[in-house]
C-alpha cells in the first residue's frame, strides 16, 4: 500500500524540505515586517499610522491564493520582477515567500499590537522620562515585553503559515502539496495512504513547533 514511498519515483522528503524552507524564510520575513507594521500602527506620526492600518486591513482580508497568484502574474509576468531569481524554480520560490510575508506580516502585526496593549503604560512613561526617544522606547522597553506576552498567538500564526505554504503550489513551487497533487493522480489506488503521509508530514512539522514555543513562552514570561 505504501509502495510509492519506496519506489524511488517521488522525493517526498525533498518536497517537505522546500516546505520547511518556505516556512522558515517567510516566518523570519513576517516577523520583521509584522514588527515594522506594529511600530507604524502605534507611532505618533499620523501618516504611518494610516498606512499601517490600511495595509493590515486590506491584506489581512485578501485571500492568500489571490496574493500569491498576484505576485506571480502581476509582479513577475507583467512587471518582469524576478527578485534576483535565475530560473523558473527560484523565481517562483521567492515570489511565494514575498506573498507569504506580505500576508502573514499582518497577523504578526495584530498579535504584537495586542501584546503592546498588555505592557502597562507606566513602562513607556518611565522610559520616556529617562530621555529615550520613541524608537528606543519601542525597541528597548515595549516590544521586548510585548513579544514575551504573545508567543502563544505567534505560535498559532507560525502553524498557520506552515500550512499556508501549500498555496505556493498554485504557482508551481515544488513543495509538499504540489507533489501530493502529482501523486494523487499517479497513485489513485493508494489515495488515502498518500493523504495520510502528507497529513502526518505536516503534523510532524507543526506539533513540535507548538510544544517548543509553549515551553519558551512559559520560560520568558514577564513577571509583574
Amino acid at each position: 500500500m505504501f509502495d510509492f514511498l519506496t519506489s524511488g519515483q517521488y522525493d517526498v522528503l525533498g518536497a517537505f524540505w522546500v516546505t520547511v524552507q518556505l516556512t522558515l524564510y517567510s516566518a523570519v520575513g513576517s516577523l520583521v515586517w509584522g514588527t515594522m507594521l506594529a511600530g507604524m500602527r502605534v507611532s505618533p506620526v499620523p501618516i504611518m499610522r494610516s498606512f499601517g492600518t490600511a495595509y493590515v486591513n486590506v491584506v489581512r482580508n485578501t485571500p492568500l491564493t489571490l496574493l500569491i497568484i498576484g505576485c506571480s502574474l502581476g509582479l513577475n509576468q507583467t512587471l518582469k520582477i524576478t527578485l534576483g531569481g535565475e530560473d523558473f524554480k527560484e523565481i517562483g520560490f521567492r515570489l511565494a515567500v514575498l506573498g507569504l510575508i506580505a500576508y502573514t506580516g499582518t497577523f504578526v502585526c495584530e498579535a504584537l499590537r495586542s501584546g503592546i496593549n498588555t505592557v502597562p503604560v507606566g513602562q513607556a512613561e518611565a522610559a520616556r522620562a529617562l530621555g529615550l526617544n520613541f524608537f528606543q522606547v519601542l525597541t528597548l522597553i515595549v516590544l521586548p515585553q510585548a513579544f514575551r506576552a504573545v508567543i502563544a498567538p505567534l505560535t498559532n500564526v507560525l502553524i498557520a503559515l506552515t500550512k499556508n505554504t501549500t498555496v505556493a503550489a498554485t504557482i508551481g513551487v515544488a513543495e509538499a502539496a504540489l507533489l501530493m497533487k502529482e501523486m494523487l493522480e499517479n497513485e489513485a489506488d493508494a489515495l488515502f495512504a498518500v493523504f495520510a503521509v502528507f497529513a502526518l508530514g505536516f503534523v510532524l512539522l507543526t506539533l513540535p513547533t507548538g510544544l517548543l514555543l509553549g515551553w519558551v513562552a512559559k520560560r520568558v514570561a514577564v513577571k509583574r
Partner: protein
Amino acid sequence: MSGVSVTKDAEGAAEAADDLVVLSNVNKHFGALHVLQDVNLSIARGEVVVVIGPSGSGKSTLCRTINRLETIDSGTITIDGKELPSEGRELARLRADVGMVFQSFNLFAHKTVLQNVMLGQMKVRKTDQATAAKKAQALLDRVGVGTQADKYPAQLSGGQQQRVAIARALAMDPKVILFDEPTSALDPEMINEVLEVMQQLAAEGMTMVVVTHEMGFARSAANRVVFMADGKIVEEAQPEQFFSNPRSDRAKDFLSKILHH
C-alpha cells in the same frame, strides 16, 4: 533638616535669577475639566518643594507637566532657562535632565535591577557598559539595595523597588527630580525606608518636587509647601508656617481633616 530651609522673602530677588523650574500661567484641561488653572510656580536650584492637596486637585498633573508626560494647553514651562520643547529629540534631551519617580515604581519588568539603573546611562548618556555598571552598583548601594542587583523588579518588595527607581533617576545626574506620590502604593512599614532616602537627597541639596501625602516629610524636608485645590495653587508657605498657621480656609479645612486621623 531646618538647616536647609530657605527664607523665601529675604532672598526672593537672588532666587529669581537662579530659578531652575518656572511655570507661568499654565492651563490644562481634561475634556471639560479644567485641571490646572493659571498655575504659576518657580522652583529654585537646590530647593525642595512639597505639593500637597486633596485628591483631584491637580497636583500629580502639575508634576507630570514639568517633563511633559502631560501636555499643557497654554502657558510656559522653562527648565534651567530653556522652554520645554513640544516633541522629538530636544524634548528627550531635556527629559534626561529631569528625573522622575512614579507612584507605581514603573521599573522595567524584563530587566534586572542593575540593568534598570544602567539603561538610561548607556542609551541616553552613551556611557560605556563598565562605567555604567559601576555607577549603577554604587547608586544601588547608596539606596540600600546593592545586594539585589541581579534580581528582577517583581522579586523585590515595594519599598525596595521604589528605592531602585530613585537610583535609576539619580543615574542620569538630573538637575531636578520629580516625585509623583512615591509612597502612596507602599505598605506602611516600607514608607520610611523610601522617605529616608529622599530626606538624604534633600539634605545633599538635590532640587526636588514632591507630590505626597506624607506630612511628616513635608514638615522635615521641605523648604516650601505648595497647597493645591481644584486646579489652583491656593497657598505657598514654609512648612512650619503652613502647618501651624495656614492662611486659607481651604487649607485649614484640609489640614483639620488629615491631622485628626
